[in-house]
């Protein structure tokens, strides 16, 4: 069996390699290499400051991957486990290095997205269409010039939306896109960037998503004899979704050192919650309507290359309406309103060429009001005094101090300490306030690069990175105050991370190309592990390769884990600081780009994660030292893409991706009754991009020229083999499904 497996795999490799000769794209270098100088500087500096380079997916890669939302894309990162309840509207959250989804912070254009109620951000709601870049930092962003709060989470996902780029003489960019797909998916998207003055620009983006969410799923079990025990196919119900997203951004680069920007975001949706499929229950009646709105501003400047300041402000207003009129259950109808005000001030001083120091202070105010509409209704009917909604408040303060030392790039070190103080308060006297002592959490990062200045550096790079970090995950309003489950005496959950990483990068020839203009989608996309925005030359028929490989080992420990625990009578639960988890893991990844003759490029991206995350709470538990729920020991992904660029600059690409999540357990005990099978999906996409108006060849980059209009078409087939699988037990995932996209860009 095993030998046969190897042979078959070998055969597959041969097939894949034999396939190249079809179509590939080489970065088109004849186009636009230049962007506004100020931004290049800022970006470059930021990159240089990163001690440990994050995992990155850029817009061009995101377009190639079979991914509809940010959650789908994050599956391609190593060390990440996605919880996916299925379908377009199903909740999708991620868990980085097994520490729990609430240890992962998600930032939208640099400001954290919050949900004070349950601490989870549904990443299925964030569209990739407006995304320029997704980055995952383990530990923290290792650039010390950041807001205080950014030092606070164990894992950080940064979502960066498209920034406007204009070539000389350009005033307007616009794009329009239509996507159709399985489950009744209709997803139009329009957007425009307008240059108002030289430094001031406006971006607009709007998107509508509709899906009926019905898809067939199958449950089948066999007897030990191999005979079918049962085999049934049903249609997923109540999975419909309607959502509208609108965004507006104003960016002003007023000098070579400073800029400000303002970003408004509004998301409205209504959806069904399809629920668990259990014996005799094939549909569920829960519904959710919500609106998430926020406005955030950023101002940043630098003086005499010594002092940098960044100010962030945000106001968010989120409304959620949940109701369930399933006639088999008791009805529920609740409204929630959350508000958030956030202020951040960060400063960095460059003391000497090799020594930076930063200090930042953040403040955040959260409020949650919850109203039981059924109760209000009954009180009105009975002419009773209508109770005002329950309200909870939180004031949070973060103060950080950090320092970074750079010994001629050979050795970089950073140390940070964060003080966090969180106070919660309820409106009525019945709700106890919490006032914890401020908590201090340190973080230490370092990176050793022996070839930093050697002559071969540009072809080879080797780095050894390591970090240690502590972080707290604070109890949410639900943990503290939820009717049955609340417990105002909760302490924050502590995560301690230790990580060592070895990264190596090699390329075939020195071929440094200047940073490409972001709007040029042909720019090299594979985020290489060394973080240099350098793409191999694809000019003419030059051949070459880029390879980066890295492996990280980590040991994490989560203590005082907040878990739901039965209170003893009926089904009443409470939240307790009861839980301790030990996590050992290895993340390995490899990226290879081969630049082949005839303008073909073959890109591969491999990720593999091995994790043991065991419960070490109490030796007398039946699940002591068992793997915690939904953490597979093995998981990984493989992406192979072949691209081709024609002489006139048209691109074609074929992409294949494979995602594997190994066997897991749905509950704490690793028994046969809790066993969940591995799942793996094969996805394919095929795309083409055509310039509708030809460009004058040989035009100077700085001269005014006509902008081309690009047409792009993409077809994706997901779960190619139609595997019936579940990520979360009793939440069946879709079988084979298709999406088609047509986009026009100007």
């Amino acid at each position, binding site marked *: *069996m095993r030998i046969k497996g190897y042979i*078959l795999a070998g055969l597959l490799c041969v097939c894949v390699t034999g396939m190249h000769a079809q179509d590939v794209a080489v970065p088109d270098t004849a186009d636009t290499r230049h962007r506004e100088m100020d931004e290049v500087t800022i970006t470059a500096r930021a990159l240089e400051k990163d001690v440990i380079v994050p995992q990155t997916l850029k817009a061009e890669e995101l377009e190639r991957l079979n991914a509809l939302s940010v959650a789908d894309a994050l599956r391609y990162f190593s060390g990440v486990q996605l919880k996916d309840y299925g379908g377009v509207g199903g909740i999708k959250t991620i868990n980085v290095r097994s520490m729990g989804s609430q240890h992962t912070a998600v930032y939208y254009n640099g400001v954290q997205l919050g949900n004070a109620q349950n601490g989870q951000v549904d990443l299925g709601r964030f569209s990739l269409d407006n995304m320029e870049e997704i980055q995952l930092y383990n530990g923290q962003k290792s650039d010390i010039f950041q807001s205080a709060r950014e030092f606070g989470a164990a894992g950080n996902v940064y979502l960066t939306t498209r920034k406007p780029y204009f070539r000389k003489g350009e005033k307007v960019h616009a794009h329009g896109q239509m996507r159709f797909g399985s489950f009744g998916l209709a997803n139009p998207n329009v957007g425009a960037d307008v240059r108002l003055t030289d430094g001031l620009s406006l971006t607009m983006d709007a998107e509508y998503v509709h899906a009926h969410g019905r898809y067939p799923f199958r449950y089948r*079990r066999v007897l030990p004899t191999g005979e079918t025990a049962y085999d049934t196919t049903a249609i997923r119900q109540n999975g419909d979704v309607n959502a509208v997203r609108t965004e507006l951004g104003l960016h002003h680069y007023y000098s070579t050192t400073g800029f400000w920007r303002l970003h408004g975001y509004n998301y409205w949706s209504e959806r069904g919650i399809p629920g668990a499929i259990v014996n*005799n*229950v094939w549909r569920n009646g829960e519904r959710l309507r919500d609106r998430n709105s926020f406005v955030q501003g950023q101002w940043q400047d630098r003086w005499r290359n010594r002092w940098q300041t960044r100010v962030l402000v945000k106001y968010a207003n989120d409304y959620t309406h949940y109701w369930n009129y399933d006639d*088999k259950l008791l009805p529920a109808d609740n409204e929630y309103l959350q508000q958030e005000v956030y202020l951040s001030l960060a400063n960095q001083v460059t003391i000497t060429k090799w020594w930076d120091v930063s200090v930042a202070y953040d403040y955040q105010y959260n409020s949650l009001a919850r109203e039981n509409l059924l109760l209000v209704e009954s009180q009105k009917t009975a002419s009773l005094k209508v109770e005002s909604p329950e309200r909870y408040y939180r004031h949070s303060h973060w103060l950080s101090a950090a320092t970074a030392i750079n010994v001629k790039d050979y050795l970089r070190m950073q140390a940070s300490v964060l003080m966090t103080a969180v106070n919660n308060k309820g409106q009525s006297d019945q709700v106890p306030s919490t006032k914890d002592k401020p908590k201090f959490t340190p973080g230490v990062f370092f990176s050793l690069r022996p070839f930093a200045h050697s002559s071969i550096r540009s072809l080879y790079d080797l780095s050894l990175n390591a970090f240690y970090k502590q972080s707290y995950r604070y109890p949410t309003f639900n943990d503290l105050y939820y009717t049955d489950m609340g417990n105002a005496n909760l302490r924050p959950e502590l995560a301690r991370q230790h990580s060592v990483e070895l990264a190596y990068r090699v390329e075939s020839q020195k071929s440094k190309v200047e940073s490409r203009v972001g709007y040029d989608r042909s720019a090299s996309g594979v985020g290489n592990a060394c973080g240099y925005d350098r793409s191999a030359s694809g000019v003419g028929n030059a051949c070459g390769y880029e390879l980066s490989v890295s492996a990280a080992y980590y040991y994490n420990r989560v203590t005082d884990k907040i878990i739901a625990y*039965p209170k003893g009578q009926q089904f009443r639960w409470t939240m307790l600081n009861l839980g301790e988890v030990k996590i050992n893991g290895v993340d390995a990844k490899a990226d290879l780009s081969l630049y082949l003759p005839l303008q073909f490029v073959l890109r591969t991206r491999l990720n*593999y994660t091995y994790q043991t995350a065991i419960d070490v709470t109490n030796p007398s538990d039946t699940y002591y030292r068992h793997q915690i729920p939904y953490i597979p020991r093995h998981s990984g992904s493989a992406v192979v893409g072949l691209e081709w660029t024609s002489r006139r600059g048209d691109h074609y690409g074929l992409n294949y991706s494979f995602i594997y999540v190994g066997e897991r357990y749905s509950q704490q005990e690793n028994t*046969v009754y809790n066993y969940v099978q591995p799942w793996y999906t094969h996805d394919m996409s095929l795309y083409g991009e055509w310039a509708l108006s030809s460009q004058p060849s040989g035009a100077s980059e700085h001269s005014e020229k006509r902008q081309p209009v690009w047409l792009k078409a993409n077809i994706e087939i997901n779960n190619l083999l139609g595997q019936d699988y579940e990520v979360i037990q009793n939440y069946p995932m879709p079988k084979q499904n298709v999406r088609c996209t047509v986009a026009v860009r100007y």
Partner: protein
Amino acid sequence: MHSSSKILNRVVGRWSLVVGLCVLLFSSCRTDEVVYPTIGTHVTDQVGTGGLYILCEGNMGSNKARLDYMNLRTGDYYTNWYGAQNPTQLKELGDVGNDVQQYGGRLYAVINCSHKVEVMDLRARHIGQIDIPNCRYLAFHGDKLYVSAYVGSVASPDLLGAVYEIDTASLQITREVRVGHQPDELQVVEDRLYVCNSGGYLTDRYDSTVSVIDLGSFTELRKIPVGLNPTRLRVDRQQRMWVCCQGDYKQRKPEVVVLENEQVVHHMEMPCANIAIHGGTAAILNGEDKELVLYATADYSEQARWSLAGYEHPYGLLLTDEGVYLTDAKNYVSSGVLHCYRYDGQEQWHTLTGDIPGHLCHVTGEYELHGDTAQQDTATHSPYITRVYEYLPGMGQFVNVLPKYEEGDDREAMCRKCEAAIAGNAGGVVSLGGWGGYITFGFDHAVQNGEGRDLQILGNAYRMTGSEIYGSSEPGIVLVSRDDNRNGLPDDTWYELKGCLYADPETRHDYSRTYTRAGDTLQNPFHQQPYYPQWLTEDSYTLRGALLPTQTETINGQVVQRILDYGYADNRPNTDTPGTSFDLSWAIDANGNPISLPYVDFVRVYTAVDETHSPIGELSTEITGAVDLGVGR
């Protein structure tokens, strides 16, 4: 037995390329989902009468309601018993079990979040189901079943619950009556039905009444005020009702209220998570202080007070003639524990259960758990094995496990364990281990050589999906013997039943193997126990017999065997009755000459292949039972 292969390595054959890649990368692939197994464990030698069903609730949304069974007559505990009886039930028993009771010859279980009452025979074989939304508890009277439910068949604007009346013959709902908020336990006393209205979902507005329903008109007569949030209601032999009120978990303390003639006659302020009444004893489980208090129902006097300090969450409770059964629900999301005590407080035994063992039902009366009473000639003979005389397996990965060897066991003890596994219709498994390993068994009568096939021997062979000729076949040769010396022991001449490979030129009739304790080095990572029979006092033993040529091939990455035509045990699936049956007329002597045996007293089976394959381990014949086809013929 193939170790991992039977469960894990049923590879999706069509996509061999893909399979190859993921074998390379990750070593574990998705396979056919096999139904959840039933695992039997011998818990105690202190046996009693009847059986005990344990309904484990399972956490909401997990679909893990599980009906376990404790055979009190043998002391064996079986997990997922319902699953074993009803493997074809779509999505198993369901989501959140809430009550289980015996009534007449049937067993009824309420599966709350599957909105149904499951109706079974006393062996837990599915008979039917009654769909009732959000059903909670059961009561019986005459030919009617009464079920409380949090919602009525038509949604009520004031969120009132209902009680449904069901005809037990047709399993149809006949009548329905509105009661209070979230009705829980209910009881029939004479011609009236009493149900406690908890209001448990209405935080701060709990209900506090017991509804009285006239069974004739099926209408609510009145509501008796009791304490706040009543959830449990039991009747003692004086026809008084004990009602457990949970209070509001804040200011209002929990209490137990006793009603007689619909009047409150007694009141005790104490937490009562659960209550059970048997004879003149009422046991009240105080979940908060982790105590069980036993009262005399006659005068409410306290008889005993047991500390349950070692419990995490004492939960289910049942009293029988023989003892007190109490469960610990632990953290509600992992295995619970079932404890059995004598009335003097002495613990008899305990065993692990499913998640949240909440509801217990002692099944008594005339029911035959093993075997179908309707068909067999029970008056004279059992068609099943009654006795195991010898058991000596070849070294193998399931030796000391199937059956389980425990310190101190000798040959005799192992034979008794084999009986526990395969005698009667127990359906357990005995592994004969590597080549030559054997078992000798008999019946409570001699097996007659009648017309056609006489004896069926059951194993665990199966066909590969979609294939007629390949599968898991681990053939064992069958020998038979007559008790010619009349000493009742299998020490007489053995005759082989001639199978299809007897004359095959590759069959070796003079094969032997010597197994040594020293040679017991770990081979298969899935099975790390010693492979040498631990009950043997000698350090080596030699087995002799015939070796069949290998039938093993690899197909689509799966190690399988070509299924043999006839004449071997554990070669064909049990569903293939002719293929698993033997004719005593096939018997031959040592020289291969046919011999006529009018009957046999002993049957011996030994593993006839000597093969080990990665990753499945060695092939070994397994026996799961035998049937004398002549009984009742």
